């Protein structure tokens, strides 16, 4: 390997936090104009390694070479100067400024008298977008644009600062399918211009579509770096989880739910806002219903409406044959509905609070004695939940923020199952969760259904949806366009076509 081709080289990087070793002798390099996928389970050290490259953290030992020369990156500023750009997962844009103002933020072109020349900023933004061959209005206020445009603005911002290496962390997470395709084409174009991309994603198809090479980290150590042509998806999955995973994502036929049984949940002609239109369906005890659809098809909105967060405009919801009013989450909870929200950090958890406090938040009524909360009951209940859901936590009083993504998700699920709901809605239950935990969560869903609960699963990942659902509803523009039994879905292709409305 010719080292001169390497725009970035990280050599034997070590890093530990509070005595816990996070990176051990990790090497990583990126060639000019390549897409290099970085993979690993939650807690494998991907983020830490990238934060070191961006100057957010400093390595305890090891060296970084940029363009073959030793570089000292001690701040985000150093990283930018060295040509490292980051497309943030949580976008780092100021919503109230225009696209052009954001792109030139902190590097505003100055006109006469030292005042900002906004027209020059627009020109610069236009140039960058022209280079990227995408169409974005530089004068539009960012807050008025959709997430796909936010991302394009982020990329343009990095490029305008002469980034040679772009770090993209789960860039397709918030994009619709056609937007993903546009992004992939953009990445191809950037590659041809000699820009290198470090691509972090849990989605195997994207990695195969885009990446030239892949590096896998496991438990803070470098496991392998290979050309993608030399490695099979099974090998990658095995490398990430450290054991061979077989059949976890395959569908297991379950006892057919009889149509004779009275539905647990029945929705008739539901309308709520622009994204839930005339939705009707029935859900029987023991049934797992998958909701498929593109971003913006109304899946999440339907869940929110059923949980009493969004107001219903019209329609009826029946639980066990009785009409119920769901105008607040409290009412929904009392009616036996629970929702595992899509964004666990923003909606599911109080991150700074302890695991125990988070677990017990919906259960405070159960642990009262004479108006006061009973400490020993609280401890017993949280301990049993932690055990039942195999949450890995050193101590229930540690902040939930310190847990890995998969364990945080388990806390959210445990918190809700503690209320013993009859109807469970899970919105993207395995988002950002490593493969091991993912199969645990899917198993949990199957068990709940077997225990007679009615489950609704919303997911953008078709393999996952196909793995658990007994029936799939396909939503488009807020309406149900298909209602397909699992046995009627041959493979992922079929479902994808259904979702596209073909």
């Amino acid at each position, binding site marked *: 390997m010719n080292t001169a081709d390497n725009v970035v080289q990280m050599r034997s990087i070590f890093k530990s*936090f*509070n*005595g*816990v070793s*996070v990176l051990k002798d990790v090497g990583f390099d990126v060639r000019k104009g390549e897409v290099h996928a970085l993979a690993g389970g*939650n*807690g494998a*050290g991907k*983020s*830490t390694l990238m*934060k070191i490259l961006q100057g957010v953290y400093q390595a305890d030992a090891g060296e970084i070479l940029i363009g073959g020369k030793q570089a000292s990156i001690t701040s985000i500023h150093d990283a930018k100067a060295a040509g490292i750009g980051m497309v943030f*997962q*949580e976008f780092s844009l100021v919503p109230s400024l225009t696209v052009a103002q954001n792109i030139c933020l902190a590097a505003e072109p100055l006109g006469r008298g030292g005042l900002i020349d906004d027209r020059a900023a627009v020109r610069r933004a236009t140039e960058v977008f022209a280079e990227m061959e995408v169409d974005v209005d530089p004068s539009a206020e960012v807050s008025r644009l959709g997430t796909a445009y936010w991302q394009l603005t982020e990329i343009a911002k990095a490029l305008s600062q002469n980034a040679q290496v772009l770090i993209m*962390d*789960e860039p397709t*997470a*918030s994009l619709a399918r056609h937007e993903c395709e546009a992004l992939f084409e953009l990445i191809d174009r950037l590659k041809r211009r000699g820009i290198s991309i470090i691509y*972090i994603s*849990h989605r195997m198809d994207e990695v195969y579509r885009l990446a030239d090479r892949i590096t896998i980290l496991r*438990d*803070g150590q470098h496991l392998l770096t290979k050309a993608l042509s030399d490695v099979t998806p099974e090998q990658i999955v095995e490398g990430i989880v450290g054991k061979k995973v077989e059949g976890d994502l395959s569908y297991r036929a379950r006892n057919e739910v009889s149509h004779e049984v009275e539905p647990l949940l029945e929705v008739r002609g539901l309308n709520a806002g622009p994204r839930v239109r005339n939705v009707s369906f029935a859900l029987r005890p023991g049934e797992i219903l998958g909701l498929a659809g593109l971003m913006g098809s109304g899946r999440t909105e339907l869940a929110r409406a059923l949980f009493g967060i969004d107001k219903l405009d019209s329609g009826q919801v029946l639980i066990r044959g009785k009409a119920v009013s769901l105008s*607040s*989450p*409290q009412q*929904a*909870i009392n009616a036996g509905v629970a*929702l595992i*929200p899509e964004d666990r*950090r*923003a*909606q*599911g*958890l*109080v*991150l*700074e*609070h302890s695991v125990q*406090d988070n677990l017990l*938040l*919906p259960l*405070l*009524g159960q642990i*009262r004695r004479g*108006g*006061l*909360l009973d400490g020993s009951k609280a401890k017993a209940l949280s301990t049993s939940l932690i055990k039942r859901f195999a949450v*890995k*936590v*050193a101590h229930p009083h540690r902040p939930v*923020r*310190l*847990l*890995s*993504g998969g364990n*945080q998700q388990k806390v959210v699920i445990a*918190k809700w199952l503690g209320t013993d709901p009859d109807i469970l809605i899970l919105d*993207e239950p395995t*988002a*950002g*969760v490593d493969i091991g935990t993912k199969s645990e969560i899917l198993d949990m869903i199957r068990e709940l259904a077997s225990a007679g609960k009615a489950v609704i699963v919303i997911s953008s990942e078709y393999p996952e949806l196909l793995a658990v659902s007994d029936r799939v509803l396909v939503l488009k523009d807020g309406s149900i366009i298909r209602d397909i039994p699992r046995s009627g879905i041959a493979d992922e292709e079929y479902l994808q076509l259904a979702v596209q409305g073909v």
Partner: protein
Amino acid sequence: MSKTNTIASRDTGVSRTLGTILKELDWRRYVIYIGFVVVFLFFAVLLRDQGFLSPNNLLNIFRQTATITVIAVGMTYVIACAEIDLSVGSVAGLSSVCTAMALSQWGLVPGILAGLAVGLVVGSINGALVSLLGIPSFLVTLGMLGIAVGVAQWITASAPQPILNDTFNTLFGSGNFGPIPGLVVWSAIFVAIGAVVLNRTRFGRQVLATGGNRNAADFTGINTKRIKFQVLLISGMVASVAGMLYAGRLQSGRFQWGAGDELSAIAAVILGGTSLFGGFGSIVGTLFGALLIGLINNGLILAGLDSSQQQVVRGVIIILAVALARKK
């Protein structure tokens, strides 16, 4: 989608040694107690000839900080819920005035009810504007600060309203329960109830959850609008009791009573380790925060500093303590 948690990687080891537990112990949360002891010992040594340690002086510290302590207990709820209440000082003033006027007109019970009514009305208005209309509490209570003090000055034509009812004065501040000053008893009652409710009741837990992540609290079925309303109502009610304590101790109602107390109360709460961003609250910490402020005031007076110098030193100590207590 995947918000890869950078700190997650720390959590790989499930078993940890006592050493790391001690190292990760959040000592910043206890900085108020350390600070309190340090300042106390400092004054005890420096001012031993000025009578700092005499029982009378120590009781005086408690007495002088009682109203701030009471107000700060209510404020702890507001701040732990990620809101702020700037109107407490002028609510205390208005309450003292209304109590005094109602007392002289109609007697003891109507007087007390009038004081409480001030807190009920102002707290409800604050709470309704914040929770129903979604106006930031900073602005609502800033406006209310002016309104309350203005009303108090207006209805009294700026004149003090003497209170001649001995029962009231004895009950609210001037009297003693055996050897213990009544004011100390009052603050003890408020601290005790405040601490139990915040730590040991469903309501307290829901206040902390709302302050920690309102969105998650909403998704958990907590009526966060009601919680925000309730904390502002509590703060108003508590401030009105503090106003009556001023009235009883100073045997009059006056619109200036309590002026500026909102800042002392906020300082006490923050010194006590309650997060200014919500989600955490400690009533006992608040008590020590208030006592620390009282201690500093008292010590500086005994040391012979004039009031301008006192203000400077007090400001420096507060900034220092908060700087030490802040999160990494």
